Structures are given as structure tokens and as C-alpha cells.
């Protein structure tokens, strides 16, 4: 049971990470900086609860805010470049963040022990949950509360004018400009929202793993972050969720029995998924299909509605 609870925690946090990349990807930007924002959120939140003794709620709020501010600041120079150059620039930023935490030593003595981030050794003893008596289930609910909140907010945004504007910028910047959209502002805003979400995810991540270190926030994590929305498709936030469940639940955990062959199959399956569904696991056609199904079920004379009456 604990295994599945743990897996559900991972899925939750990675969904937040994927959604942060989803925001940025909507505007057509492939960003590998999300792991960097995630790392900033993790360290900020952990330092606030461990060193400053904050409650976790204000701590993750602050972590989210700091990551958002950094994302906004990174957004301005980074978004001047496009395509592959943006990938390289954001990758460089992510690595810079990782190396910063590799060298970041800020330990404080508490009685016998020293606590706080210790450079390459990582940041140990982030014990807010055990100290306050939260069970694994409590933590799980806590994580998914935020996942639900963020998904609801993004789902709402998707259906509003903001969502249409983000997608318009993602499709054709020149046309968007000519339709009166301030493309720079939209891209920086998307990057900032992505930073807020990644920082939130990082803050939560730090507390359930209880030990964070620079190596966790490397290129692999950045690749996962961007892979989720690409794999899941940009038509709906649920695509990202499904992609995380597919990757974390099925590809990584479900195929563990294959040993080293897993990694090979992992790449192959992603390739297969992208070929079968080039616009993501959930694309516009899927959503249109679901809508049609719902309408049909509402029509009189339908077997299901008759059965319900």
C-alpha cells in the first residue's frame, strides 16, 4: 500500500512540474528551465520550514513566489531567443541553478547537529511532516489538493480569452502581433505562471522526500517536465496528468521488472506514443469526441438516459 501512496505522491508532484511546462509550451516555447524553478522552490520552502521554523503553507507560498519572480526575470532575456536557442538558454539557466545549489552551503548549528543545505551533500532532515505527525495519506491529500487547485485554475484559464491568446502566440507570433497581442508580455506572463507552479511543486517535493540535493534537479528532470505536456498534448490540462501517470506509473514503475531493458523500452514507447498520437495522448479530436458523447447521452431516447429515468 505504501508503495502506491508513494507513487501517487510522485505523480502529484510531477503533474505540477508538467503543468508548469504546459503553460510555457502553450506559447510555443520549449523551456528546460522548469527543473531550475522547481529546485528554487524546493530549497526556499525547505529553508523556511527547517531554518526559520515556518509552517509549510506560507513556506510553499513564498517558494512559489520566489520561483515566479526568478522566472519572470529569466523570461525577459531568454524569450528574446527562439526555438533551439531558447532550449539552450533555458538549459544553461537550469544547470546554473543546479550548480548554485551544489555550492550552496548555509548550515546553522542547532545543539549538536548542523542543519541546512550543505552544498554537494545536499539538504537533509527536512522533517516538517513527521514532526507535525502527518501520515503518508495526509501528505498525499495535501499534494493532490494543490494539484487539483492548479489544474482547476489552468482549466479555467484555458477556456478564457487568456488561454486562446496563449495558444495564438504559440501558433504564429507574427499573426498574434498583428491581431493586437503583446507577444513579449504574453510569453513572460506564461513563463512567470510556469515558475509559480514549478516553485509550488518544488516546495512540496522537498518536504515529502525530506532530503534534497542538486543532482535531483538536473537535465533529466527538466526533460521529464517538458516531455509530459508534449506527450499528453496541449489540448487540455488532463493530457499532462495522463502523461505523468503513463510515464511514472506505467513506464517507470510498471516496467521495473524488466531491469536494464526498461530504459530501452521507455524511449521506444514514448516514440511510439508520439507517432500514434502526434498531437498528444489527448488531442482536440479526443475532446470533440468526448463532447459529442456527452451531448448524445443527454438526448432523449438514449439508452443510458432512459435507464436512469
Amino acid at each position: 500500500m505504501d508503495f502506491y501512496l508513494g507513487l501517487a505522491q510522485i505523480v502529484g508532484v510531477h503533474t505540477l512540474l508538467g503543468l508548469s511546462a504546459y503553460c510555457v509550451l502553450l506559447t510555443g516555447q520549449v523551456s528546460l528551465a522548469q527543473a531550475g524553478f522547481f529546485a528554487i522552490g524546493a530549497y526556499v520552502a525547505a529553508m523556511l520550514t527547517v531554518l526559520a521554523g515556518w509552517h509549510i503553507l506560507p513556506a510553499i507560498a513564498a517558494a512559489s513566489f520566489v520561483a515566479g519572480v526568478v522566472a519572470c526575470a529569466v523570461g525577459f532575456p531568454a524569450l528574446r531567443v527562439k526555438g533551439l536557442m531558447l532550449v539552450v538558454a533555458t538549459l544553461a539557466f537550469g544547470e546554473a541553478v543546479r550548480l548554485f545549489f551544489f555550492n550552496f552551503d548555509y548550515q546553522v548549528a542547532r545543539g549538536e547537529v548542523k542543519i541546512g543545505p550543505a552544498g554537494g551533500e545536499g539538504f537533509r532532515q527536512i522533517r516538517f511532516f513527521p514532526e507535525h505527525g502527518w501520515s503518508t495519506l495526509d501528505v498525499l491529500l495535501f499534494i493532490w489538493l494543490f494539484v487539483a487547485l492548479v489544474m482547476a485554475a489552468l482549466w479555467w484559464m484555458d477556456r478564457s480569452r487568456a488561454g486562446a491568446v496563449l495558444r495564438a502566440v504559440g501558433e504564429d507570433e507574427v499573426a498574434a502581433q498583428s491581431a493586437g497581442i503583446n507577444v513579449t508580455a504574453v510569453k513572460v506572463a506564461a513563463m512567470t505562471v510556469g515558475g509559480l507552479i514549478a516553485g509550488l511543486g518544488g516546495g512540496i517535493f522537498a518536504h515529502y522526500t525530506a532530503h534534497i540535493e542538486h543532482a535531483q534537479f538536473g537535465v533529466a528532470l527538466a526533460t521529464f517536465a517538458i516531455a509530459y505536456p508534449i506527450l499528453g498534448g496541449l489540448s487540455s490540462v488532463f493530457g499532462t496528468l495522463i502523461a505523468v501517470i503513463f510515464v511514472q506509473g506505467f513506464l517507470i514503475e510498471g516496467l521495473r521488472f524488466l531491469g536494464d531493458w526498461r530504459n530501452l523500452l521507455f524511449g521506444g514507447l514514448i516514440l511510439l506514443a508520439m507517432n500514434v498520437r502526434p498531437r498528444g495522448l489527448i488531442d482536440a479530436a479526443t475532446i470533440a469526441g468526448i463532447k459529442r458523447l456527452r451531448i448524445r447521452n443527454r438526448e432523449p431516447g438514449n439508452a443510458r438516459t432512459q435507464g436512469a429515468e
Partner: protein
Amino acid sequence: MLELKGLSKHFGGVRAVDGLDLRVTQGEVFGLIGPNGSGKSTVVNLVCGLFPVTAGQVLLRNEDITSLASHVRVACGVTRTFQNIRLFGQLSVWQNLWVAQNAVEHRSEGFLRRWLGGPGRAREEIDRILEFSDLSGKRDELAGNLAFGEQRRLELARAVVAKPALLLLDEPAAGMNAEEIDQLDARIRKLKQDGLTVLLIEHHMELVMAVTDRIAVLNFGQKIAEGTPDEVQTNRLVQEAYLGVAEAA
């Protein structure tokens, strides 16, 4: 309405537009014609702000807009269509218009209402434009799935929905059949009736001669003639630009 003063755009050694002076008055349909590569599209790109100018000024209602960003010019009332259609293919017809409407509509609304609110009052206005463009039945269709003629109509609708004062049409009839061109003719006249000023770039001469009030002819980035359709048609320089110069024996 629109005034170009000594407008130039050089790409490396190529003088795409070279010292162009032009005056388009309020409420007229002004045609800009010329052989391929004469710089017509570049003029549109300069007026709507896609490229910075090399030299010269763009004045809108006597105000210098030369250094304004493209999206700011839309808010000032300059919108355009593209020669090669540029719609948001993965958005629905309706969303294409909703997005474009953000430039002018609901400026007075609060930030959250404007960006995160539902369609609200926008709906009526968009429905009206859809009807004008004969796209009412296609509102929920993805723009990318529309037929070519419908895409052209949607692009015009997207430029009109932002309530421009000056509309730049870059070869709106390209690839259309005769019937569609007649409809386009009627739409341009309707827009003129509504008080819009139109700068029309077009190769389809029948349409240009029928719908415009005045015409300027470009060749190698320079204006070689200007006048009413009749005057331009009989101009010797224009005939030479289009048909070539008869070699003196």
C-alpha cells in the same frame, strides 16, 4: 488618415521601398499595385510595424507611429490581412476572432474580467462579424480545417473585429474564384460604407479598378504613378512597368 513620408526599407543592398510618399485620405479605398517584387507587401509590413523602417515616417491621423510596436498600432486602429493566410489553425473560428478582439474591446474592463472572464458581451459583436463574413455556420470549427475561401474570409473577419480605422489588405483575392471575388468586392464596399479606410494591395486588376477610389503604382520600391483608376490605366509609365519598354529601333 495615413501618410507616408520618404518611407524607405533596404534589405542589405536591396531597396525594397525607396523614398515613398503617399497620402490616403479618410474613408477611401486606396489601391497599391505594381509588378511582383515592387515593394507593395513591404509597405504593408512597414505600416503595420512588422519591420522597422530604414528611413522616413509613418503618420496615422497626423501622429507619428513609426516607432510603435505592431500590437500598439492595432490598438491605434491599424489591422491587416496576410498574403499567405496566417490564421490560428488550432483555434476555433470563434476563438480566432475572440483573440483579435482583445485589442480594442473591453479596454475599460478590469484585468481579470478581460483575460479570465467568459465571452460575455464579446459574443454579439463576434456573431455579427461572423454573419458579415458568411461564417456563422462554422463558428466552432477549427480554423485549420476550413476551406481556402473560408480561411480568407476568416482572416478578413479577424482584421475587422478589432474595429480598425485603417485596414491593410495584402492580396485578399489571391487564389479566389470569380464568385468569391465578387463577394470580396461587396465586403470591401460595405466596410467603406461603415467608414473604414482601406489600403488594398492586389494583382487582380478587375477588382482593383472596380473597388478603389485612387491607386498608386509602385515599381522597384518607388511610386511611378498615382491617380484614379482611369488615369492609372492610361499612364504610359505604368504600361511600361507591367508590359516592358518597347525598344527604340
